[in-house]
């Protein structure tokens, strides 16, 4: 009999405690943003698809060593470069990232010794076509610099 009433009593009290919590939450400011109109900046460690880092002249830092291509476990990266007449270093001509297979593991970023590759903060990636996820990173770099 005593347990019966104490159970009712404690149950009832716990209900009021719950209601007090939601009552307090009601008056706190909202924490979400109206997404398409406002967006949050992504945190530092967010991993979007990879992108090339540029030097001061706006050219990619990449020296076409091919280490990232080898490091990628999924074979997402296809790159090519050429050595123009009279230059010492190779110049990147294509860098294709097949994002449909990328697992964002970060091996490519880690393997790059020339500070040429990093994760972007891009997350608005929705499309109905597969081709939209095969990124030409060199073109993206140029577009960024426009």
């Amino acid at each position: 009999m005593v347990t019966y009433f104490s159970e009712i009593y404690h149950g009832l009290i716990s209900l009021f405690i719950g209601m007090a919590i939601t009552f307090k939450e009601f008056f706190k400011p909202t924490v979400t943003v109206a997404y398409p109109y406002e967006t949050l900046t992504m945190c530092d460690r967010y991993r979007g698809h990879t992108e090339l880092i540029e030097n001061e002249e706006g050219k990619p830092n990449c020296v076409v060593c091919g280490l990232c291509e080898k490091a990628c476990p999924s074979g997402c990266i296809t790159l090519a470069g050429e050595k123009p007449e009279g230059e010492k270093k190779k110049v990147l001509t294509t860098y294709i990232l097949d994002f449909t297979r990328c697992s964002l593991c970060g091996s490519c970023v880690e393997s790059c010794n020339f500070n040429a590759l990093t994760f972007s903060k891009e997350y608005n990636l929705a499309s109905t076509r597969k081709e939209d996820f095969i990124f030409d990173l060199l073109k993206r770099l140029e577009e960024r610099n426009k």
Partner: protein
Amino acid sequence: MRLTLLNVIVAVVIAIGFAALNAAYLVWAERRGAARIQRRPGPNINGPFGLLQPPLDGIKLMAKQLTIPGGADKVLFIAAPVLAMFPAIMSFVTIPFSETIVAKNMNVGVLMIFAFASMGGMSLVFAGWSSRNKYAMMSSVRAVSQAVAYEIPMLITTITVVMISGSMDLMEIVRQQSGSILHWNIFPLLGNSHNILMPMSFLIFFTCTLAETNRAPFDLGEAESELVAGFHTEYGSMGFGLFFMGEYANIVIGSCMTTILFLGGWNAPLPFLGFIPGVFWFLLKLYLLIATFIWIRWTFPRTTIYGLLNLSWKILIPLSLFNLLFTAGLIKVF
């Protein structure tokens, strides 16, 4: 007021208007309130504060096609949503909003409201049965056991109040609670109840109202996580719209009844505030109760069917029965 055809029609039109307006804007209030509790803004795009959301939702629902599943019982399938809405609207006719604002006062008002309220349960059974859908079927089975379980303590508690007032007339019940906040039936001291268990009765009645209107945490009839949408799984268009409006209209009726039976109806809480019209106090109490409904829904998770039936049969019914006998004893002694 004489009962002529004209004022019956006027009363019904006003009742439908009031019910529909409340249903529409309670949905808005519910969504905004839920959002605030979850710390989101809620619907705020259409119109100021999202106030145009309910009419737009209504237009969307009306523009949809009403499909009837193959093999369904057509007559019952169409009758069910109407039956969900109609008892609530009928009940408005006898609810006194103030000393003067009442469509038709009856000396068996309490009885009439409970008679119509029990018909509301039928709509769930009809909908579940006629949909030819196993989820809807399970939902209506649950709804029946729930309605049986919660109508009993609710009626016993109502009988307690009726015994204290000595009348089934809603206006008379309210009149007996006039004076001040301490004369209301919820508080035992100055009123004619002298019963220290009345706050408990209020809680029992309020809990039963929650269960009767199938609101969370007692919304086992809908239980999206188990039963898709329960009894209205197969309803689209305004069939669904009517169920939805019926739910909110029932909330309004339930809150009206709680206000009348326990919170002194249109009476002002303190005598010197009596110059403010009664309808203001009535609506204030009504909407505070409705806000509590919304608040409760977004605080507690859904109970289990066992928890629900245990609560009724093991706690609410014994306690309300005890209070009934206790009140009878008190009336005999004093």
